[in-house]
């Protein structure tokens, strides 16, 4: 098992290196002077010379790449030109919002998707099955931003005066506030990794209110997450449901399932214990792969629901031509994506002993 994990880890290193290279190259290879892009009309030759010297752009490209790698190695993602502070600092503020949203959406998609897939497969061609599959086809075809806006319209406008009204955006209702953890724990003067970690956790309101036991805030934060999570989670939900169904149907056609039935095992046991356990592997793959779509979808979801996560950060970065921000975010999301898929890969080893031995 250890060898298996080590091999997977080693295989990831070149990909990570490649990601860094692509993100670096994108800024240098594609047309457009970074100085002109950043300073716009203020890009006089003198200002550009100063700018290039400051950001190391006057060095040869390979040297620039080494400098970039060096910066990355101690967590320096560059400085945001429009905000005048380190990208990593903005990231600690914004990333938790996105992670919270993405995890919520993914949990929803996984639980509902597997449940619906199992029901569909065990009652093949029933009304539930047909309904789920039609729903799944519609689900994968509806853009996140369309679904999000329609959900807002239904739950915040049409159902305005009913008990199931949901907030159309933001993270907390006006008036509800949450004290940053660093403040309540008396860490305002501190800096460094520990403080960053505390700030990071503090910005995930659900986790934060759970830790500190602020149940009112928790309820409010969760209520604000429902619509965005449904909008974001619908595409992976549909994919997971379809994959669970087809994978389970494949497995249920096999001989050992007939054996299990023949020895008198209940249908529930056959499907869950013998069927699902063997059908889950492709589903886990799909869950890992859907994270890429979720991170990208989060950009759109956040823009619709007014959440200031990395999505807001990247769109601000694009409109402000703040390349360091976009570059840093692209890098971080890709690394998250690769890491999660590495974990998924390794989890195969636990789920299916055959894979370890290959």
């Amino acid at each position: 098992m250890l060898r298996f994990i080590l091999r997977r880890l080693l295989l990831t290193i070149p990909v990570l290196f490649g990601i860094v290279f692509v993100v670096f190259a994108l800024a240098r290879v594609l047309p457009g002077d970074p100085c002109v892009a950043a300073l716009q009309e203020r890009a006089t030759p003198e200002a550009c010379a100063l700018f290039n010297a400051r950001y190391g752009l006057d060095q040869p490209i390979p040297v620039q790449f080494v400098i970039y790698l060096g910066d990355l190695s101690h967590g320096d993602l560059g400085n945001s030109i429009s905000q005048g502070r380190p990208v990593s600092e903005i990231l600690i503020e914004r990333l938790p919002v996105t992670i919270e949203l993405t995890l919520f959406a993914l949990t929803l998609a996984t639980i509902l998707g597997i449940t619906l897939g199992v029901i569909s497969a065990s009652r093949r061609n029933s009304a539930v099955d047909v309904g789920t599959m039609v729903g799944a086809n519609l689900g994968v075809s509806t853009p996140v931003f369309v679904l999000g806006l329609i959900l807002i319209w239904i739950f915040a406008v049409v159902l305005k005066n009913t008990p199931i009204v949901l907030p159309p955006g933001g993270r907390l209702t006006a008036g509800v506030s949450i004290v940053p953890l660093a403040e309540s724990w008396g860490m305002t003067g501190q800096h460094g990794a520990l403080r960053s970690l505390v700030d990071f956790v503090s910005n995930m309101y659900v986790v934060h209110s759970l830790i500190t036991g602020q149940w009112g805030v928790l309820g409010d934060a969760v209520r604000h997450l429902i619509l965005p999570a449904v909008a974001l989670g619908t595409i992976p939900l549909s994919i997971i449901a379809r994959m669970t169904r087809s994978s389970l149907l494949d497995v249920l056609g096999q001989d050992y399932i007939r054996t299990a039935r023949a020895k008198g095992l209940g249908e529930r046991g056959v499907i869950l214990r013998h069927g699902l356990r063997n059908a889950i592997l492709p589903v886990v793959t799909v869950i890992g792969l859907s994270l890429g779509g979720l991170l990208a979808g989060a950009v759109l979801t956040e823009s619709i629901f007014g959440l200031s996560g990395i999505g807001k950060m990247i769109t601000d970065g694009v409109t402000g031509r703040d390349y360091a921000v976009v570059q840093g975010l692209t890098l971080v999301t890709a690394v998250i994506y690769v890491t999660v898929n590495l974990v998924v890969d390794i989890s195969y080893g636990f789920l299916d002993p055959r894979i370890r031995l290959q």
Partner: protein
Amino acid sequence: MSTPPRAVTPAEEGLAAKPTSLWTDTRRNILRQRVAQVGLLLLGLLLAIAVAAPLLATSNPDAAVGVDEGLMAPGAPPELRGPCIHLLGCPASRPQHFFGIDRNGRDEYSRVVFGSRVSLLVGLATVGFAIVIGTLLGSIAGYAGGWLDNVIMRLMDVLLAFPSLILAIAMVTVLGPGLVNAALAIGIVAIPVYARVMRASVLSIKERDFVVASRALGESARGILMRRILPNALTPLIVVGTLGIAGAILDVAALSFLGLGAQPPLAEWGSMIGQDRNYLIAFPYLIITPGIALSLSVLGFNLLGDGLRDALDPRLNR
């Protein structure tokens, strides 16, 4: 599609049956599936609307007709901007706008109709670009093997390691916003998928007897690739490509929604939704109508792609 499949007698199904080509089989298999039928129907409709857009539209999609008609005048009640269909009881005194008018006084229905052209064209062009480059890279990698294969495929791995829309956003940041740049970025990001599919096909075909025979007969590497391998590798490319068009339409619309793709005044569904999103509460149909058009187009390609995959999968042939 109109004639029902003829009943096949058992005798016909046996040795006496005429051998049919892959395409005949495929066509028959596709038409047998409900899913693919719906997909084809939706796409036929989309294509018809795109081709006949000037005939179907009630006004110029870029003209502020609502302003000329006084619907946007200060003091005019906002309900006037809503949908008005004379046949459904809207008073004849009001100018007819099936889906109402947008924030600039343009006829929303005409814009939705013309938007079909943009989405269809962008979807096809983007995937076409990705397939050409991807196929080229994949066949070189698969056919040449060795270090070239390694270099190309590792590069593809790296591109696949990015969440695609985010990489596209990063590219558009550098290239500058615009429909062509957005489509280009989505196209580049999609290349690895086709390169992988093509490489896998080439690898499975290149050692087959008929390829070895061509090589023995002195056919050039290019000839073998183009005439022997490519036609036999097309099947998976078509399936992946059809599903890819759905994804490309979604992604380009998403970029346009964020203001990075199609620029105003072009009638593109994603950018229409993005431009009018603040009118959601007062005029929800401005979001809903292009939204439905977008979803149905994507659904059409998704269903056709699924149907093609099932139809072309020999394991499912009965």
